[in-house]
């Protein structure tokens, strides 16, 4: 729900409630007050008459309306009471308040009745309600109008901040640089966000540098070791010394493994930190990447006597990808399907607009399939390979928003890894998390 709608709703609820309460109180209370006022007026008139009589003057006879004062020689019930009298003009009964008291004007006791019309109180109620309802209506309209204006004007800096946050790309290595709006809360929000983004940029930068340095600085000594060991292998004295020769060979092998491991881990962390700028993506023909890789892996297929079936949907358009990542994805999927195959088995690759499917025959693999994508997950503990291949596959897929699924059909011992591409629009961008919608 829109924040303004929500606040307006509560505001209106409160206003309406208060209005209803006020109206009810006035509706019920006003007659009481009026009656009380009338009573006091009648009492004051009575006192005036009593004082007049006490001074020896006669009762007034020139009254404007006869009903205002009734006189009687007969005893009447004393005190206040309500009554109805006929209004001759409108020919209807009109409520009156009356006060009866006894008075002796010198010619014996007399009962006097003072009357006041109560007809105004009905009109008063009506007017009151009309005014209140009118005010309520105007207030409601005012609140809605004001909120619209507020939404347009006062919340503008907030909308601006939100738009900037949505389009913010850490890869540009720039802090947000939000302005300082006049409203304190928004100014504080922007300041906090600016600080946050500055920290993010600094952290990201140091992380990026570390990954870059780690990959560069570590590979250099590894390169030296590897070259020197390989050169050592050429030493003529070693040719006759099989033990040392084997040892140097193994050292060389381990160095190579270390360097590969390092490269894989660097790739994983670069993927996790989204360190492949979208700008580096170019249109990649996956079919070509696939065929190149298969071509290179040909001898491996041959040596294991694997049968290859290739099914490529014709007319595939290139996808916007980082060429290195596309290659790595393909390599790791194929390598995995070869590694876990059995001699004489089948390797089936299907590439379509929607998905890439790499299937292979092979023995069932124990364990939870969802954990196959974990790092250092090895089917065979004795294997020299570090078990990062599928983890890299998963990370590349996540990076591009592709879905990757593993299926195993027990009866046929058929393993399938299926990569579902995102629908091709004009280009594939790395998956972005949708920001939470605050204001619609």
């Amino acid at each position, binding site marked *: 729900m829109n924040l303004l709608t929500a606040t307006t709703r509560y505001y209106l609820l409160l206003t309406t409630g208060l209005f209803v309460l006020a109206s009810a109180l006035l509706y019920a209370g006003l007659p009481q007050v009026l009656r009380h006022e009338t009573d006091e007026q009648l009492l004051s008139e009575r006192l005036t008459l009593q004082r007049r009589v006490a001074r020896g003057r006669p009762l007034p006879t020139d009254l404007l309306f006869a009903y205002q004062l009734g006189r009687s020689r007969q005893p009447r019930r004393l005190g206040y009471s309500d009554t109805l009298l006929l209004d001759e003009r409108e020919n209807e009964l009109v409520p009156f308040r009356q006060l009866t008291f006894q008075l002796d004007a010198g010619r014996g006791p007399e009962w006097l009745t003072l009357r006041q019309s109560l007809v105004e109180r009905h009109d008063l109620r009506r007017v009151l309600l009309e005014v209140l309802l009118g005010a309520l209506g105007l207030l409601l309209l005012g609140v809605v109008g004001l909120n619209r204006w507020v939404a347009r004007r006062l919340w503008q800096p907030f909308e601006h901040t939100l738009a900037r946050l949505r389009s913010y790309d850490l890869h540009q290595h720039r802090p947000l640089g939000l302005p300082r709006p006049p409203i304190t809360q928004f100014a504080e929000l922007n300041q906090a966000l600016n600080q946050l983004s500055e920290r993010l940029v600094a952290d990201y930068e140091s992380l990026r540098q570390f990954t870059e340095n780690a990959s560069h600085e570590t590979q250099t000594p590894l*390169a030296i070791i590897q070259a020197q060991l390989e050169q050592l292998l050429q030493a003529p004295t070693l040719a006759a010394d099989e033990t040392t020769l084997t040892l140097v060979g193994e050292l060389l092998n381990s160095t190579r493994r270390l360097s590969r491991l390092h490269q894989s881990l660097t790739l994983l962390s670069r993927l996790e930190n989204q360190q492949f700028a979208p700008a580096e993506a170019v249109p990649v023909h996956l079919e070509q990447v696939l065929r190149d890789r298969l071509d290179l892996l040909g001898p491996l297929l041959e040596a294991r006597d694997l049968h290859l079936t290739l099914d490529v949907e014709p007319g595939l358009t290139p996808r916007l990808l980082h060429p290195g990542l596309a290659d790595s994805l393909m390599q790791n999927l194929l390598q995995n399907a070869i590694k876990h195959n059995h001699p004489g088995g089948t390797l089936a690759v299907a590439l379509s607009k929607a998905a890439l499917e790499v299937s292979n025959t092979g023995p069932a693999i124990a364990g939870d399939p969802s954990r196959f994508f974990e790092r250092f997950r090895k089917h065979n503990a004795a294997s020299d390979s570090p078990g990062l291949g599928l983890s890299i596959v998963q990370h590349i897929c996540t990076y591009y928003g592709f879905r990757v699924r593993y299926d195993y059909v027990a009866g046929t011992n058929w393993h399938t890894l299926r990569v579902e591409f995102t629908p091709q629009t004009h280009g594939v961008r790395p998956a972005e998390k949708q920001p939470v919608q605050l204001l619609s």
Partner: protein
Amino acid sequence: MKVLLVEDEAGLRQTVTESLRQTGYVVEVATSFGQAQEKIALYRYDCVLLDLTLPDGDGLDLLRELKLDNSPAGVLVLTARDGLDDRIKGLDLGADDYLVKPFHLSELNARLRAIIRRRQFQGQHHMAFRDLLVWPEQNEVLVRGELLTLTRKEYDLLLYFLANPGRVLTKEAIAEHLCGDQVDAADSLDFIYTHLKNLRKKLQERGADNYIRTLYGVGYKLSID
């Protein structure tokens, strides 16, 4: 054949130089951007082996200069940076090839040989080794004048050996050469044996016996005598 090695890491520079000299190249070295610039301006090389990260400059700038001068020298980029970034940039600028550090010296020899062969437009187009004669343009191999029929991978394998005469080639280096440097060598060694066996057999049938020697547990070597 004369090559210039531009590399600031002393350990790597010495080892690579030694290896290249053993293979038969005339090697000059430059330890910095400035030195490399000077040598490129003064001398002619068949190929420049270029490290991209130099203390006083970017190797890619040297590459740009070479291209601007229309230098006939081939350029083989050696990069320690992650291959996912620089390989494309370097090749776009006109490098003939690239190698990501760490690399196999034998692979360096093979790449270097290929670059120089592609760039030599005059003179002989063939390579001779003992009784072998290879015409790379036609993908033909002759043993004492007789045509040898090889599969493509066997041919690649033979060229790899010929680029590294007398040097020990590890199984891993051979596997990576044939199946790409991303190949998991640990899982792919078995096929090398098959290919080598076939290649040896074919050579032997034509009378080129004992050309390839096995070094048990380590690798193979093309014997020079």
